[in-house]
């Protein structure tokens, strides 16, 4: 496979686009053995495999995906990217990711369409304002950009926003200018392509159904729908299915899986310049390059693996969007869908070692892990390769639930993304 360049684009334009081949190898059958196997071909799993192959000498690597790559939450999310989290541990993790996003298209030679158009989080009440101002201060101390805008400045930054309406008054907002969106599929495909070029086997339609451990307790083989695979190390990056995969190795997880929904409108000309989030009324909106409004809703109240949520959750979000942006009242919605997100009680991810030697886990990203994809893969690859936590990953260990060193972004932000 050859690289993308302006020259190639021109040549293909003149040859009727007939010269493009598959962008990554996807062998039908896995090899009988690998040194490292990643379970889950979402963005996080593929990024992990890429950084393992690029930065660490670990031998043969495979990614096993039960469906098609990017078909999980990676391909279902609203792609909001930001790093203005409250606690220093989180700001370090998410900002590591934002820094990698900034150069990712060049790094992968694949356009992931990272667009740092600014993420504005609206404050609707005094509590929101105090909490966001605290975030702004904490972020600045941590070297992460975040600034407070008053209501007029919010409207200037996002003209469709109605700051005069009474239902959800806008007192101001916290703006992270380096935040934005990226193209979800391209992230999975770009990492797959770059990992494949470095020798990683990407095996699709290959579900892991069992994890075996040797006499020493360490993982030694996987049962899959494509046969048995002997393994040295295993990284589980299975998002909503993590509890089920870890149970195969006899490990219980502090996770619950919930449906989270999103929807898109009919495509229209560019009308919406940035990303706006409102935690209090549970609505997130941006406009894709295709022209659709991309709208994120909340989670259902009960755990489920159904990949579909209640319609009342969607209508609640749309009501809020129509109040905040009256110009969208007559837009038609085209599609809605759900993904299954794995949530922890402190709303921070789990990245690191497990009680089983050779078994590593990267999960618990809940409603907001897309933004972390490059950083998550990068620190998890180092954690697997060295069998010790990367310094940025260390606070996010599984044993924090026993030591009590929780990173309580749940209390800090109250919700999502």
């Amino acid at each position, binding site marked *: 496979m050859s690289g993308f360049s302006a020259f190639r684009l021109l040549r293909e334009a003149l040859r009727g686009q007939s010269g493009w081949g598959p962008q990554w190898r996807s062998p039908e059958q896995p090899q009988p053995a690998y040194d490292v196997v990643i379970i889950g071909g979402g963005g996080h799993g593929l990024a992990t495999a890429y950084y393992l192959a690029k930065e660490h000498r670990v031998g043969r690597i495979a990614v096993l995906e039960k469906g098609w790559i990017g078909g999980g939450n990676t391909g279902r999310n609203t792609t909001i990217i930001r790093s203005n989290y409250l606690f220093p541990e989180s700001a370090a993790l998410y900002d590591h990711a934002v820094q990698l996003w900034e150069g990712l298209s060049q790094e992968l030679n694949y356009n992931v369409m990272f667009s740092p158009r600014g993420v504005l989080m609206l404050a609707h009440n005094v509590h929101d304002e105090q909490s966001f101002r605290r975030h702004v201060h904490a972020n600045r101390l941590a070297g992460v950009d975040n600034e407070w805008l008053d209501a007029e400045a919010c409207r200037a930054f996002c003209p469709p926003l109605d700051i005069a309406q009474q239902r959800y008054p806008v007192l101001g907002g916290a703006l992270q200018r380096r935040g934005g969106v990226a193209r979800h599929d391209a992230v999975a495909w770009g990492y797959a392509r770059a990992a494949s070029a470095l020798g990683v086997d990407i095996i699709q339609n290959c579900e892991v159904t069992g994890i075996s451990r040797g006499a020493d307790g360490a993982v030694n083989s996987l049962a899959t729908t494509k046969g048995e695979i002997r393994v040295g190390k295993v990284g589980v990056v299975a998002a909503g*299915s993590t*509890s*089920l995969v870890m149970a195969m190795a006899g490990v*219980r*997880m*502090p*996770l*619950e*899986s919930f449906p989270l929904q999103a929807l898109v409108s009919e495509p229209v000309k560019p009308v919406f310049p940035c990303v706006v989030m409102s935690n209090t009324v549970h609505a997130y909106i941006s406009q894709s390059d295709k022209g659709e409004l991309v709208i994120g809703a909340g989670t259902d*109240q*009960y*755990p*489920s*693996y*159904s990949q579909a949520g*209640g*319609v*009342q959750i969607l209508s609640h979000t749309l009501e809020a969007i129509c109040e905040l942006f009256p110009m969208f009242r007559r837009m038609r919605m085209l599609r809605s869908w759900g993904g299954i997100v794995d949530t*922890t*009680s402190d709303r921070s991810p789990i990245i690191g070692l497990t009680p089983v030697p050779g078994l590593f886990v990267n999960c618990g990203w809940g409603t907001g892990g897309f933004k972390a994809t490059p950083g998550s893969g990068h620190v998890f690859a180092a954690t697997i390769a060295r069998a010790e936590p990367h310094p940025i990953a260390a606070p996010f260990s599984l044993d924090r*639930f*026993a*030591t*009590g060193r929780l990173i309580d972004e749940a209390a800090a932000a109250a919700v999502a993304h």
Partner: protein
Amino acid sequence: MVLIHCPWCGDRAELEFRHCGEAHLVRPADPAALDDAQWAEYLAFRDNPRGWARERWRHVHGCGRFFNALRHTLTDRFAATYKPGEAWPEPPA
């Protein structure tokens, strides 16, 4: 949105109810006797099954009472709801 059968009030819309997590978790009688891992197990670790789940619900916008339910987490179907203290029903085959 699903219909949920409150053992006291009958069938009502989901909006009237609040999901309250995994059912039949018993608070350890003597927390001080537990080590950190056991306490973490009680606080944070959950079955999170794909299939039949036993869970606690509360009819917040109705009678206000707690009850338990057997619900399938792939289809969201409720097989049964039952009062606190009652034995849990067997999942349908």
